[in-house]
């Protein structure tokens, strides 16, 4: 009997889980009819299974699930909603104007143009807009024009050597 119990005990769990062949089932049931110890072992397996299973079945019978779906739906909706920054970012990502291949050279060009323009605008050049003519003298040899730049307090004497050639001194 003990040897038989030893070999049957290996099959007992599979028998309990209904994972035995027909031949194995006959073998186990034949042994169980004459072995109280193995029958008790089998009952223990059943009790254990009951402890695990029954509270779960009772809990599920009392449960109301529709509101669970509403929570899931709401959570998915909240996760889909973008912040304003995310919306702007996604627009930037899809707008062809802001593709890296376009905007980097464009920005670089604008920067260079600005640099050149600034150089031109802010370069100190004499301004003759503020000049006022003080005197114009005609002579046989040279014609002279004297005028003053008000802001810079500079006097310019323009000597006309010949009609085609000019000289300036200040």
């Amino acid at each position: 009997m003990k040897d038989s119990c030893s070999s049957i005990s290996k099959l007992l769990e599979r028998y309990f889980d209904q994972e035995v062949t027909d031949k194995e089932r006959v073998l186990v049931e034949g042994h169980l009819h004459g072995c109280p110890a193995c029958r008790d072992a089998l009952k223990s397996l059943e009790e254990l299974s009951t402890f695990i299973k029954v509270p779960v079945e009772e809990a599920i019978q009392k449960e109301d699930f529709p509101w669970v779906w509403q929570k899931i739906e709401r959570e998915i909706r909240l996760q889909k909603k973008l912040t304003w920054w995310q919306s702007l970012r996604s627009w930037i990502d899809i707008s062809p104007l802001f593709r890296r291949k376009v905007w980097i050279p464009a920005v670089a060009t604008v920067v260079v143009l600005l640099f050149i323009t600034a150089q031109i605008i802010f370069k100190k050049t004499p301004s003759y807009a503020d000049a006022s003519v003080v005197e114009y003298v005609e002579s046989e040899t040279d014609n002279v024009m004297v005028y003053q730049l008000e802001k810079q307090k500079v006097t310019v004497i323009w000597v006309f050597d010949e009609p085609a050639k000019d000289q300036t001194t200040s």
Partner: protein
Amino acid sequence: MDHEETEMISRCQQGDQEALKEIFDKYHKKVYRIAYGVVRQREGALDIVQEVFIKLFHTIKNFKGRSRFYTYLYRMTMNTAIDHARKTGKQSVSSLDAEGSFEPSDSVEKGPERILLQKELEERVKRAMDKLPAEQRAALIFRDVEGLSYQEMAEAMGSSIGTVMSRLHYGRKRLQALLKDYVGLHGQGRDSSDPKKQNLPGSKKE
């Protein structure tokens, strides 16, 4: 996997929330059973159900159809439930008055002593299950709660049938040791001498 389910999964993979609702309607109770089997607590189980379906909506694109869909879902549920149990395990203090513990539906007929005993038993089972390694706990829940075959369990757990059987065996052995005060109590007083009177578990059901 039948054609209807394949079509439902395909629509869900394309972001159709209606399809997710259909999947929810079909599987939410199974997911809840597994979740409750792990955490043994109503609020925790409901949180897990919610988390699983939200996760499913975002990751269902990864399901390639190589395994059955329900084993894919069961695996996701078990992993989520075990993570949840791990996170809350240290925080929760189990007590007989803990919210979510078993409450008999018909407390009028059952006396207060019986209710107390049941609560105590439920609490002991929860503590014992918490002490099991995650894989053994998963195996017991898949088998005893969900009734999966060894093959289905192997698919859900991503392991071989031999490994599944081993986990079941050692899980049951450990649980019996932890609940030795309770296992065998129901057997006392019954007539075990006459096998014909016994309705043996595991025998072929007609």
